[in-house]
């Protein structure tokens, strides 16, 4: 059997890029959500949580419509940034970020809310800017949540199927990630290849979760 490593590599590339983007926008967003007293907060929280309850195909379907060159949004993206998101790796990244958003935001938001308010107050009284407070006081004290949020988002991206299938299709080297490859190989009755991809995903997922629980137990001590 000749093994095609490409779907696995693509999967981890997608998960890594997605997680990196999520960390950059999700952590500040979680902080904002934890502190805002805005009237629309419940609506925003509900929106963030939608990917948890929606069938992935629903999200994928709407994203596909929005990304299509026929749609004003797709046209606008193409015109302004030269981005064509439907059936492309970039499109997968955008969809994955949206889809995995709650997996990072929820634990991090909860951790921010559990930090005593007085920590922020103390840092401000000591003359520290919001940025310094965020980097030196808040972030270091939510490390366990940050780690589990990151890993959950990563693992969830590795495991997603419906959204990818809807907006990415099955283009080798571009959108053919491991979960799609497994489905594809089974369709073609190529069980050995499917088994290979499945086993790698299974073992890696297990190892990642094991690491999270191990580190969290140490952090609690």
């Amino acid at each position, binding site marked *: 059997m000749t093994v095609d490593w490409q779907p696995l590599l693509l999967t981890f590339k997608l998960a890594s890029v997605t997680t990196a983007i999520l960390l950059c926008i999700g952590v500040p967003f979680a902080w904002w959500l934890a502190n805002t007293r805005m009237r629309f907060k419940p609506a925003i929280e509900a929106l963030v949580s939608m990917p948890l309850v929606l069938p992935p195909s629903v999200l994928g379907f709407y994203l596909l419509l929005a990304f299509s060159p026929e749609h004003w949004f797709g046209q606008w993206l193409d015109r302004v940034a030269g981005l064509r998101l439907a059936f492309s790796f970039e499109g997968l990244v955008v969809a994955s970020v949206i889809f995995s958003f709650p997996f990072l935001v929820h634990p991090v938001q909860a951790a921010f809310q559990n930090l*005593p308010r*007085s920590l922020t*107050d*103390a*840092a*401000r*009284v*000591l003359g520290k800017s919001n940025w310094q407070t965020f980097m*030196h*006081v808040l972030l270091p004290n939510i490390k366990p949540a940050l780690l589990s949020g990151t890993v959950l988002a990563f693992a969830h991206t590795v495991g997603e199927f419906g959204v990818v299938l809807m907006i990415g299709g099955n283009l080798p080297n571009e959108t053919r990630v491991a979960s799609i490859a497994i489905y594809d190989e089974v369709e073609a009755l190529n069980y050995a290849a499917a088994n290979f991809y499945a086993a790698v995903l299974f073992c890696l997922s297990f190892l990642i979760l094991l690491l999270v629980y191990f580190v969290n137990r140490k952090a609690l001590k």
Partner: protein
Amino acid sequence: MIRATINMRLHGTNGEFQLDASLNIAEGEFIALFGPSGVGKTTLLRCLAGLELPEQGNIVISGETWLDTAARINLAPQQRHIGYMFQDYALFPNMTVRGNLEFALRKDRNKKRIDELLALMDLGELQQRKPETLSGGQKQRVALARALASEPSLLLLDEPFSALDAEMRTRLHDEILRLQRHFGITTIIVSHDVGEVYKLASRVMMMEGGRIVRQGSPNDVFSVGQTSGKFRFSGEILAIEPMDVLFSLTVLVGNQIVRVVAMKDEASALHPGDRVMLVSKAFNPMVLKLD
């Protein structure tokens, strides 16, 4: 010199009330804000620190305007140079004792001050420890040292001793007095402990329902008028027992238990838990030297 007027609506356990207080504090004074919980003491302190914005207010410290709601001036807490000790100490769990103090140091300041404070507060041996490994009294000392590390012009203490036992409290009272005199910092403490106020404050402001209802020296504010008794202590009644035609009162003064005799009509007006003032003539106490 501090002049402040603060006006804001507060939501207490007994409904809404108006915080309406003006302060006039001289340099180097040790002020106590005294009163039951929920009368706006902590909010007043937070307004001074800039952590809370009153609806109307004015704060001028040594000629510098920190707050003037009419002129839309409101200095951020970062710009006010205040030392603030929080009820829960608010030590940063991710930093060591020394780290907490260094974080508090203003830019370009000599790190010698940290060593000086660590020595002053007897924290030298604990400097590499994380806050979670410290006892309540140790945390309290670190919090105080951190509040002083930033060289504040004003020190605000929010019920800093409420979580400690009597012995530890007495020790820290001595410590805080020593440091306050050492640095000469104007200090405001929130407290609902008469003994603490007596010991620490040069002036007490008694608050009720958002207003300062009385102020003056602890003696003037707490004693019922002026009495010529020289021997006086405030304490808490622990027990009241009949004794022939008299009653015996067991009273906790500081951390000592004393018994005094009272008449029936006096005893019937008292209940365990009441705070009382024990007054005696200076002639009565007999003095025995302790080795």
